[in-house]
């Protein structure tokens, strides 16, 4: 099928994507925004246009903020193609997606990747048991279906989302058996070294403290500085084990929600062979981009958490910068006008990013390199011990790990194990993750069936 031509194709309808579309369309560019969901919002503002007053109240003011952006997007003139799973973006900016089993293609002059973040893997003993899921997945159920867990509920890990979800559950009347926080005193000390910068982002901090305070006031048991986290169970999760306050704990649990922050979803930027670097502060890969978000693949931009974790408000600023730069490159704006329109977003972005070093230090994820018996690759059930034995046989990186033992070769394309595999191999070899590298990512990025592809045969 002949691709539709368009000035700018934006992938992802979260804050970065909506904002990029608004900025580019506002400069007169033809814009298509492609997204998997039925409505705009991405994960952070998921189902924002379909939500009612009660749910807005329950989810809180940060979520409700998304309404203004969604309204601006609806009025922008950018075309929203909902329900499209983009499965390939090529270096010459052809975008292939799938909707209702049919392939749709676009040829864009500029592409903005706004594919956001995903939760960091949480590889501990028992993390593959039924009853264990991520806090982010649980929050999606809350946002879209108002579904809450039944039974004894434990939240474990670290990071703002853990407390936000706890607070949202509190408001929804869900009883929380315990919150187990891996953040310890040393994290606080390291974070305070960045406190000067964090003062500029004081609102972010204040919000976190408010959530924690509300949870404590409601009598939710808190365990901080937890180590040795593991989940017991045979057929399903039965209890959470950990050490805290100088003694061992075991708490019965039916549902365990794990979270230790989010990391950029870099599948598209890797598949485009953009240069990536290992970010030691955020412990993840980020694509190398210029001040407007353009990758070293000309004409392709990244905006939002996909380029490094900055949060929803930073994402909206980055989206605006990418959208303006794309429009300027296409001659819709001159450089001066681009810079004038970008100035407020740049200033706000600086404020938003100022708090990151503090947050990254405070919520440094700890459970990243597991013991030998823990499954790392869930699709192919490859354990950390097996990966270490590959290293002993000469395996130097994730791509060889695939060849040695099928690690990362299942349906998730290595999304769920990639970071763990990089860090396990780096530790075993005694080198930096940067030296170990990452999986080579190839299309299709999202599933397409043989039958669906066959219909595209010439």
């Amino acid at each position: 099928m002949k691709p539709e031509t368009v000035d700018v194709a934006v992938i992802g309808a979260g804050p970065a994507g909506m904002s990029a579309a608004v900025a580019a369309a506002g400069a007169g560019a033809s814009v298509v925004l492609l997204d998997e969901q039925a409505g705009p919002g991405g994960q952070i503002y998921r189902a924002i246009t379909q939500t009612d007053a009660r749910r807005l109240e329950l989810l809180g003011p940060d979520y409700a903020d998304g309404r203004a952006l969604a309204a601006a997007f609806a009025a922008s003139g950018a075309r929203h193609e909902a329900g499209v799973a983009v499965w390939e973006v090529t270096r010459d900016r052809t975008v292939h997606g799938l909707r209702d089993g049919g392939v749709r293609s676009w040829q864009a002059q500029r592409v903005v990747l706004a594919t956001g973040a995903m939760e960091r893997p949480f590889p501990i003993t028992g993390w593959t048991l039924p009853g264990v899921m991520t806090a982010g997945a649980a929050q999606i159920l809350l946002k879209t279906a108002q579904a809450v867990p039944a039974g004894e509920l434990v939240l474990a890990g670290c990071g703002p989302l853990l407390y936000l979800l706890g607070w949202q559950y509190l408001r929804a009347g869900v009883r929380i058996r315990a919150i187990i926080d891996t953040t310890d005193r040393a994290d606080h000390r390291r974070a305070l070294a960045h406190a000067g910068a964090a003062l500029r982002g004081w609102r972010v901090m204040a919000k976190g403290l408010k959530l924690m305070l509300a949870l404590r006031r409601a009598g939710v048991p808190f365990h901080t500085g937890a180590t040795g986290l593991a989940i017991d169970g045979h057929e399903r999760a039965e209890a959470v084990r950990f050490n805290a306050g100088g003694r061992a704990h075991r708490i019965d649990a039916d549902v365990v929600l794990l979270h230790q922050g989010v990391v950029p979803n870099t599948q598209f930027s890797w598949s485009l062979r953009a240069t990536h670097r290992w970010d030691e502060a955020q412990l993840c890969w980020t694509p190398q981009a210029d001040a407007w978000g353009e990758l070293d693949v000309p004409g392709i931009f990244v905006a939002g958490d996909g380029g490094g974790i900055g949060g929803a408000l930073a994402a909206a600023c980055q989206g605006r910068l990418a959208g303006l730069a794309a429009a300027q490159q296409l001659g819709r704006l001159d450089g001066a006008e681009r810079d004038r329109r970008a100035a407020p977003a740049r200033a706000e972005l600086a404020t938003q990013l100022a708090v990151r070093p503090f947050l990254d230090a405070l919520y440094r994820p700890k459970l990243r390199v597991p013991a030998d018996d823990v499954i790392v690759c869930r699709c192919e059930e490859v354990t950390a011990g097996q990966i270490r034995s590959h290293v002993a046989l000469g395996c130097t990186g994730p791509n060889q790990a695939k060849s040695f033992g099928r690690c990362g070769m299942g349906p998730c394309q290595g999304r769920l194990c990639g970071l763990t595999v990089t860090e396990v191999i780096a530790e075993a070899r005694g080198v930096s993750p940067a030296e170990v590298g990452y999986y080579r990512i190839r299309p299709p990025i999202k599933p397409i069936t043989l039958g669906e592809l066959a219909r595209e045969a010439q």
Partner: protein
Amino acid sequence: MTAGSDVLVIGGGLQGLSSALHLARRGCSVRLLEADYCGRHASGVNAGGVRTVDRHFAEVPLSVAARALWHAMPELVDQDVGFVPSGQLKLAETPEELEVLRQRVQALQAMGFFHEQLIAPAEVRELVPALTPRIAGAIWAKDDGYAYPYAVVMAFRRAGERRGVQVHEATPVQRIERRGNRWQVHAPGGPFEARHLVNTAGAWAGEIARQAGEPVPLEAGGLMLMVTPRIAHFINPVLGATGRALSFKQFANGTVVIGGGLRCTADAVAGHGEVDMLKLATSAQTVTDLFPHLGPIAINRAWAGVEGFMPDQIPVIGPSRTQPGLVHAFGFSAHGFELSPIVGQIVAELVLDGCSTLPIAPFAVDRFERPGGESALSSFPPVNQRP
């Protein structure tokens, strides 16, 4: 300081590793220089077909000899490499295609080869009950099969290392130089020196040949494959078609690998084959025509290994015509996997005995320079090439 050995092998793909192993087995000291890591490109990521069926007639004697080695692999590399003798089928979908196959089998028999047998539709369906009924017949090579390419790479490497082969990875060769009666090879950690040089550099072998003063029309290309998730077992033999490009197999783990000699562009410098998903649509169509039940199965991954292709789709195997002490084995044009155990043996013979016990004249490095060089090849009937 210069590192010396009897033989230097350039390229740690299967042909290079097999050559190093065979040479070491015959008592040579061998160093192997690999630009990236062993099996990084076509050798490690091909479809894994151990196929004598459908070969160019010039390759038939080699492929039959190679297959005997596949069946006795533990004797060569001291371990099982996971070779599965599943048999390979080449399908005819129409009476016209069946006639092509019939003529092929007759020609092979006239040459004295009986490993490809023509079988009737009923026998095909007995071998593959899941196949669509619209089949006219097939060629059946019951002793063919498949293996996991990277496992084979590692087995050859380890067997060589046990016999003293020194493998240098991340050691891209920059320049070769003839000094007296020895070769000097410039690469990181070098220079390396040896009496004999073996060029098994795959898609990058053309540069070595050029430096030896005998340029060859070798082209780097990508060869695309795709794979499904694990699904219920439904087929044993490896399958090929006649009228359209297809190579198809279900591994023991349930994944289905689909290829068919589909080329794509490759960046030899970056070592990258660019997958063209829309070209793969043709393979998807062929597969779903033959096995309608695969329509709803997802494509888990697609990839492309970088391979060296010759214009006549058969490799260069033989001594240099310009330099003493240099042997070439490259340009396997997407079907070198099965040949690799015998290629190493041939290379060792050429290095140590000066000639091979197998007929390698059609693979001469200078066949594109000699007047009538191509016409010498045209006496072989055209064949449908697939990996």
